[in-house]
């Protein structure tokens, strides 16, 4: 099976989190980038699928020029090659632009499954995979807890997590599947995987090569960040754990001290 996984380098929250530049935009150069955590689950799902059915995995990313460093970490897990779309114009691109660019980059590839993480830790929108599926007219199978392709029949069956349990969806391939953490913990790359990743191919594409225009910060529906503030520190809270009569007494005392009740 040929599998494509959408991957996004995001700031590593473990080493200091997100920094904003002078224009209040995320300064992607300030903090080292890691593979978006949800995307690692998608890559792990892809690895398990090719282990079971054979085939290869390509990673596709739209990211700043330093992305290959991060993509190598994903290649070290076992993916076979990468495609990296990068262009100065794409700085500050919104979700719609991202979906259009990724759809164009993926359109030239042959695949049975297109996998994506549910959302990113920096943008948090969770809409790009749906946009890509719509643009490419692919079946959209979301919140997958299990992926069972039938390569002979050319179909894929997915368990979609729902509020009451799960639904079972079936669609013809190629299809887009949004992956969840229920698919299994991503593996740590082995040292041999890390060494091998150095020589795996990452093809770079400019915006012109994808044939998409009208994207980037100028075209974005929202393109200026007016301000940004950290959330206010929460005042100290007290937790009431007593049983009913004592709890009531405590709450009344609390309200009386603040003259909310007399």
């Amino acid at each position, binding site marked *: 099976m040929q599998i494509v996984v959408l991957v996004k380098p995001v700031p590593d929250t473990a080493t200091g989190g997100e920094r904003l530049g002078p224009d209040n935009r995320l300064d992607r150069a300030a903090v080292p980038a890691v593979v978006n955590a949800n995307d690692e689950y998608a890559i792990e799902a892809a690895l398990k699928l090719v282990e079971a059915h054979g085939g290869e995995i390509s990673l596709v990313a739209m990211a700043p020029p330093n992305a290959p460093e991060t993509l190598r970490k994903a290649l070290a897990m076992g993916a076979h090659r990468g495609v990296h779309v990068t262009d100065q114009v794409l700085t500050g691109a919104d979700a719609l632009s991202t979906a259009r660019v990724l759809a164009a980059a993926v359109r030239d590839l042959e695949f049975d499954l297109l996998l994506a993480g549910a959302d990113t830790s920096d943008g948090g929108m969770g809409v790009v995979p749906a946009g890509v599926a719509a643009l490419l007219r692919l079946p959209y199978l979301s919140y997958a807890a299990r992926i069972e392709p039938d390569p002979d029949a050319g179909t894929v069956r997915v368990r979609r997590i729902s509020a009451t349990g799960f639904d079972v969806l079936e669609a013809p391939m190629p299809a887009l599947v949004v992956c969840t953490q229920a698919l299994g913990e991503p593996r740590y*790359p082995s*040292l*041999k*995987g890390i060494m091998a990743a150095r020589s795996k191919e990452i093809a770079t594409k400019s915006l012109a090569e994808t044939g998409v225009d009208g994207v980037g910060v100028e075209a974005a529906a929202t393109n200026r960040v007016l301000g940004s503030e950290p959330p206010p520190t929460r005042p100290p809270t007290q937790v009431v754990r007593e049983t009913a009569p004592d709890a009531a007494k405590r709450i009344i005392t609390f309200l009386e001290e603040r003259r909310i009740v007399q």
Partner: protein
Amino acid sequence: MLRSPTVTSQTPAAAPNATPYRLTEDQLMLRDAVRVLADEKVAPRAAEVDRTAEFPWDLKELLATHDILALPFAEEYGGLGGELLNVCLAVEQLSRACATTGLILAVQELGSLPIVLSGTDEQRQRWLPDLAAGRTLIAFALTESEAGSDAANARTRAIRDGDDYRISGSKRFISQGSVADLITVFAVTDAEAPRHRRLTCFIVEKDMSGFKVERIEHKMGIRGSPTAELAFEDVRVPAANRIGEEGEGFAIAMRTFDRSRPGIAAQAVGIAQGALEVAAKYARERRQFGQRIGDLQMVAQMLADMDAQTEAARQLLYKACVEIEAGAPDAARWAAMCKLVAGDTAMRVTTDAVQVLGGYGYIDEFPVERMMRDAKITQLYEGTQQIQRLVIARSLLGKDS
């Protein structure tokens, strides 16, 4: 009249594109990959391994599946090249989290070095691939009750009998001797020969009849690493399991130490770094007298010295690895120096780490007491600090003529 040898270290000419003072991108990737594994998978088990004194088979599997045990071996045997600095980078990162786990890699290297250095192609093909894959473990059995620092005083005998040797005797303080599949044993083949020509090196397989694990020691530190007394009762070992020629055993052991001592230095640097990080974090958080204790000068001074000394030990280790790998003729001096400095540093830094934590440093709520107990062994095994000093002094002064 005393002959004065030249004191300057004789190193081969530097490779044209060598950057000896910074780690390469590959080495940084390797170091960071092992660090992540150490922090996320090894560290949570360290206290339990120490408390139960059980060999962490799960962590050994982790090292095997992530190719960490492949580091000491050449690629043709399924290894990752065998470069000494790479092995030490991994030992250091693992030891930061758990000295017992760092030792698994260090002992795998120690035990297999005789095969790597002096084995035939057939012997290397026979044993190294399984060792590189972590399918088998190997231990190094030189020490005996009456032969510690004086290794040449060993008494275990190997008597030639047709195409075999029969080995009888016992070995003491053998790291991982009870979990290893292969034991690299040094036994006397010619008791009449000059001291340094008496020993021969053999590979004993654990299933060979007459080989027995007598007991496991209860230790101060590295408690998860089983330290065994091994008994050999007429163990029949084929001549095909002999490494090198008869009488070469002592020389093989000494050449082995030139490459394995940096591994212990790496363990020591890792332990020191781990202790320093705990102490620094504590000093940032603990408040007394209205301020962080790290801002009190007596505490700041201790931490600064701990950091500088750990870094100095680390840099000497890295340099020693590069020199030994490049074939420096004074490899023995480099190996002894890095182990001497790192071991003493680890003991000093861990002791000071306990001091910084005060009462909390003495209880097992914090790992520094374990790290202090773990550090001590780095001043003792693979040659005591006193032996390391003898090696350095001999390199400096030459022999009395």
